[in-house]
């Protein structure tokens, strides 16, 4: 059980970093602006998932699976709280991700609008041809 848990977790981490690599390739190497923006959203989503994953403190340990960050008892004792702090998923990364998603939404929208405008003005979204500013 423990090995499987660790294995799955490692797969998750590995695929996240693999995803970072793919999306960076997409942003830096694909010629089309639209594809660049798609890669950018993949990139920021990967970053967000990474942040969420970080919130699962001590997940690979099988004896203490993480619990939702909600205190169920109405009047918790100190022991309850200590246990809760050890077990619960860290809510802060989720808050960070929420902020990052909102910001990412704004940036993506803006970039899509600009791409549309580029397409209107240049007739293409290929960055090799959108290169009037040089030197």
């Amino acid at each position: 059980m423990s090995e499987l848990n660790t294995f799955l977790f490692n797969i998750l981490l590995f695929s996240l970093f693999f995803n970072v690599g793919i999306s960076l390739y997409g942003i830096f190497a694909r010629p089309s602006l639209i594809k660049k923006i798609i890669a950018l959203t993949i990139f920021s989503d990967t970053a967000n998932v990474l942040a969420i994953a970080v919130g699962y403190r001590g997940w690979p340990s099988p004896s203490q699976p993480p619990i939702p960050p909600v205190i169920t008892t109405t009047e918790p004792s100190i022991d309850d709280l200590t246990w809760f702090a050890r077990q619960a998923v860290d809510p802060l990364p989720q808050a960070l991700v929420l902020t990052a998603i909102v910001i990412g939404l704004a940036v993506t929208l803006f970039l899509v609008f600009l791409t549309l405008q580029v397409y209107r003005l240049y007739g293409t979204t290929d960055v090799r041809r959108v290169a009037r500013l040089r030197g």
Partner: protein
Amino acid sequence: MYYLSVGVLVPSLIGLAFVLPLLGMIIKNIKFFHAYASAASLYALVVAAYNFSIVVKEGVKAYPFGGWWPPIGISYELDEVNSLIALLTASVMFLITLYSAWYIRDLKDAPYYYTLLLGLEVGMLGCIYTGDAFNLFVMLEVMSISAYALVGFYRNKPEAVEAAIKYGLFGAVATTLYFIGLVFIYASFGTLNMADLTNKVTLFWGYDLVSGYYYGQVYAATAIALALSLWAFTFKSAVFPNHFWLPDAHPEAPTPVSAALSGLVVNVGVYATFRFLYTIFNPFSAVSGLRDLILLVTLVLGLASGLIGALMMAVQDDIKRLLAYSTISHIGLVLVGLSIGSSLLSKPGSQAFVDGLTGAFYHLINHSLGKSLLFLTAGVIIYAAGGTRRLDELGGVARRNPLLGAALIIGVLQLLGIPPFGGFFSKYLLYASYLEAGAPYISVIINVISAISLLGYVRLLYAALFTTPKREFVRASALPTIILLILSVACLITGILSPIMSEWLRRFVEATTSRDGILNYWLQGYLIFWGR
């Protein structure tokens, strides 16, 4: 004791900025928006000056938002260095906002323009004031989105849109990389508060309080986090090889915005680099070995961007593009000054260390004043030359308006670093620190950079001052001229008051980067709240 003014400035300014589009639906008189934006940025200037004065009087000040103590809540923390940069930002932004009233005098979109301009100011002030690494990310994004939008403000101009998308796309990558860096920091240290981080990185104490376990590899996480955030910061400050967007983006923005971008926005990246490498991952921390390597990289990159900026200046045909390349060159020099802290070059607290950092900040200030002066002058020159930005078509307009010509010459002398202008004294400090540190080669390269940049400035002076007129001269109104006058006097003052200014800066740098200063940053920003 914490002051409300430390915390209130940024949120209230955001409010003032976001009300503007709504007001734009009701009020149709453009003059109102000019007055409103100027009043808002005057308010920012007054509060920033007040904050600076209390920091100088009483030392480091922090403000916890919503009464949540750090490291749980977001806090703003002001020490001497960042309150000074904030004051510089607020004052130059005030002049730029005033200038905008002339520049966009009959633009219909004025409310949106001012929203973005105030958003830019909020973002910069937030980045500078913040004592929280995640809040730095948010504020960086606020600043960047305003900047992208301002670059693409003329949305029907192909070049502007192209510059904006180039800037925006890679800018988004840079901030996301910084976010990933933050994830690593949070995973290994369990905190994002800068004061708390400083303590944990320096003493390596208490980092397993919140986190630990799987992500406990603090050294690896620190290294990756530092690498990723440094990439983002050097992108924001346009250091080689992350400088490509700048010469496209800065010229295509409306001219006051170019002044803000070139004079102030790049400073934010430099400031963030300083905060990360001298406060959080400070010379006394457990990761000082990594820090030395990274500072060597910044030294090489600083010199490279200084050289490339200067070389590219010599072949520009566009007045604003020339100035944009000069920005790259000068930010490179500032970064060279910041790199003195590597333990291979100098020991913390030694003469060379303090000289280099003082020189870096002095140069930052001089460059901000000189570059915004030159960009605003370029705006008037372009207007007087009939809207062309091409050097060949300027037709010596500056000569026919002596004040304009004087402003141009003063700006160039400031940036070339000629005594008695401020630019000389900061370059003197940079030269002296590297000679003192036993690396005279760096001084020679700084000299080479200055000599090469002479080519670009000669080009600028020749085109704007000495060519013969091609068309009727259009006289600009009094407002921009007065602003140019104020900035020119400021350039002179940074030179004439250099005995006082360098003394102050030296004190600030010593207070911020010494062991006691770092301890104090932690105490004031973290521990003091727990003692209450």
